[in-house]
């Protein structure tokens, strides 16, 4: 933690690589003008995050991340853009004050978070979790034992959201 001494382990190299991908993707998403490009950069962020999950030895979550975010949600976004007939180019900001205040507020919030992270002492009571072996099986066991009720509730939620989305988006009957 202390000083600028950096231990160039393999994890760190991978972390930095993915971090660069994600930050660049996120910034591009906000700065690009074409909406389709924005979606593509967002997909880059999602993929980078998936890679970061792999570094964190959460292979199953990384798999789900790529499947759902980089796959399904990105496609949904593209569908949303197409369905709303969006003009392909974003307008110049019409509300400079609002944007500046938003930026300042976001930076301030980041400052606070950063300060909190730097000053907090995390002292793990156990060595880091080695979840790399049979990660999916362990998660499956826990999901169907300890967390079975939330799991079933999520399935209900997904069903409801699915039906609801169809009801909302379908054309009103003449």
């Amino acid at each position, binding site marked *: 933690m202390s000083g600028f001494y950096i231990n160039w382990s393999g994890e760190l190299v991978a972390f930095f690589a993915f971090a660069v991908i994600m930050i660049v993707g996120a910034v591009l998403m906000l700065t690009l003008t074409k909406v389709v490009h924005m979606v593509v950069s967002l997909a880059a962020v999602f993929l980078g995050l998936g890679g970061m999950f792999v570094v964190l030895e959460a292979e199953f979550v990384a798999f789900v991340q790529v499947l759902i975010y980089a796959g399904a949600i990105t496609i949904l976004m593209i569908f949303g853009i197409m369905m709303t007939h969006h003009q392909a180019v974003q307008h110049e900001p019409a509300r400079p004050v*609002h944007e500046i*205040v*938003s930026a300042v*507020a*976001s930076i*301030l*919030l980041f400052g*606070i978070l950063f*300060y909190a992270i730097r000053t907090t002492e995390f002292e793990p009571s156990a060595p880091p979790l080695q979840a790399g072996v049979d990660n999916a099986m362990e998660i499956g066991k826990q999901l169907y034992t300890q967390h079975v009720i939330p799991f079933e509730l999520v399935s209900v939620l997904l069903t409801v959201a699915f039906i609801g989305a169809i009801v909302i988006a379908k054309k009103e009957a003449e």
Partner: protein
Amino acid sequence: MATVYSQYAWLVPVFPLAAFLILTAFGRGLKQTGAIVAVLGSFGALALSALVLIEHLGGADEYNDSFHWIKIGGYALTAGFDVTNLTALMLVVVSLVAFLVNIYSMGYMKDDERMTVFFGYVALFTFSMLGLVLADNLLTLYIFWELVGVCSFLLIGFWYQKPEAKAAAKKAFIVTRIGDVGLLIALLLLFWYMPDHDLSFAAIENVFGQTGLITEGITTLIAILIFVGAVGKSGQFPLHVWLPDAMEGPTPISALIHAATMVAAGVFLVARTFPIFEASQAALDTVAWVGAFTAIFAASIAIAQNDIKRILAYSTVSQLGYMMMAIGLGSVTAGMFHLFTHAFFKALLFLGAGSVIHAVHTQDIHEMGGLGKTMKTTAWTFAIGALALAGIPPLSGFWSKDAILAEALHANPALFVVGIAAAFLTALYMSRLFFLVFAGNPKAGGEAHESPATMTVPLIVLAVLAVIAGFVEMPFSGTGWFGEWLTGHAAEHEGAALVMLVSTAIGLLGIYLGWLIYVKGAISRDVVTSRAPWLTRMLERKYYIDEIYHAVFTVSLRAIGRACDAFDRHVVGGAVRLAGGAAFWTGRAATRMQSGQPQSYGLYVVIGLVILVAAIAGRRFW
């Protein structure tokens, strides 16, 4: 001698109080019956106080009874009543005049819509005045003192539809209040300096009777402040200005309050607290000189007035000055004697004036004339009152004025000269008034006719009293029992023969001069006006006292008020407007914040969160 009735003397004020309560509670439905209730109330007071007086004339002991009113720690404020020879006499005077005025008012106020209200006020006044007389300590007296002031205010402003009456009521209240503040300060000083904070008259007499208990400076200060209260109430210079204006009230009120009783309360107060004055020669001199100056000052104004009631009002001021002078000369006896006789003949004169006004519906004496032929009873009784006031023997005013003048001659010849001059002026203006109103030819259309019996009977009773009241104290040997009985000191008899001679001569001279001018026409009425118009104008304008007061007090007070108003309007009001404006504009800004756009709301939430975290975490650094 044992007392029988004196211990029930507290019941005397209760009768008019009951009448007041009945009239206030059921007033509207009563009408003529209301007058009877008031008359019965005052008659009850009269009957009981007459019994008390008879008992005291028979030599009853002084009686005092009091109860603890307020208890604070070890100190108890008492309230109670005192029956001495002096208070017994005052009780009878007050209740007798009140009774007669009540009867008179039945005729005088017959057509007034608010008659029961009027009788209610009169009953309340009678109650307060009797309470004032009976009070055994200064604080109780002060309460009743203020109560009579309130009643005076209510009754002067009784015809509140008239702007003059309203203004006069306000003036009376404010001017007497100046005096009342003096009395209040005196009261506080006394409370501070008296041993055991005892304010009762007995204690005052005790403490101030011995030297050294209270320093002379404080004694003089207290005495002067009490006198300031008396000056306000009794219309002495320089606070006399309210009394003539008070004549805007109904005439019976002028007779009751502003001639016989309330204005005499100032004299009574000084007489009651006389031990304090006695302990300070400076205070006595002040009282004597203020009284003497008021006597001649008011008498000179009375000569130039044209309103019948105002003439009588200035005459009252002048006669009250006489009383003050007598007390200032150290003779409570003479002062109270004059108060006693004056109550009767001045009430008589006012009621007579009321009878005249009732008949001719004007108050200007130049518009009257020849009323002696049509209003015989009024004219004769008025003549008796006027002669008594002018000091013609053997009427009562002669004896009491004589007592004062004899006292003055004995103690201070300068004051004697002033008194004689005032007596001359008194005789002159009374003859002017009488001749202009009752002699000569009728001017007011001739529809004047005699007033009803309810009004003339009180006149006759008062006329009889005005004749005989003086016989209780004559400056002949063996007849001075009244002063002895009243205060323990007989009136001054030394040089009485000379005084009697001079004052009679002066009185007759004044009347003769008046007769020459206003009946015979031997001297032109304009004899003064043509030679010195400024003098007449000055007297008519009452020495410009009102104007001076207006210029000095009213204008400066108004300027201060205006400054305060400006301060209030701009500084205080500005601050208020600033606060209001700040709230308003904050609200405006807050309204703009509510744009309805979720993103704005989100932004506010983030800003709020940042501020909240910064505030909580920031405390670490301080």
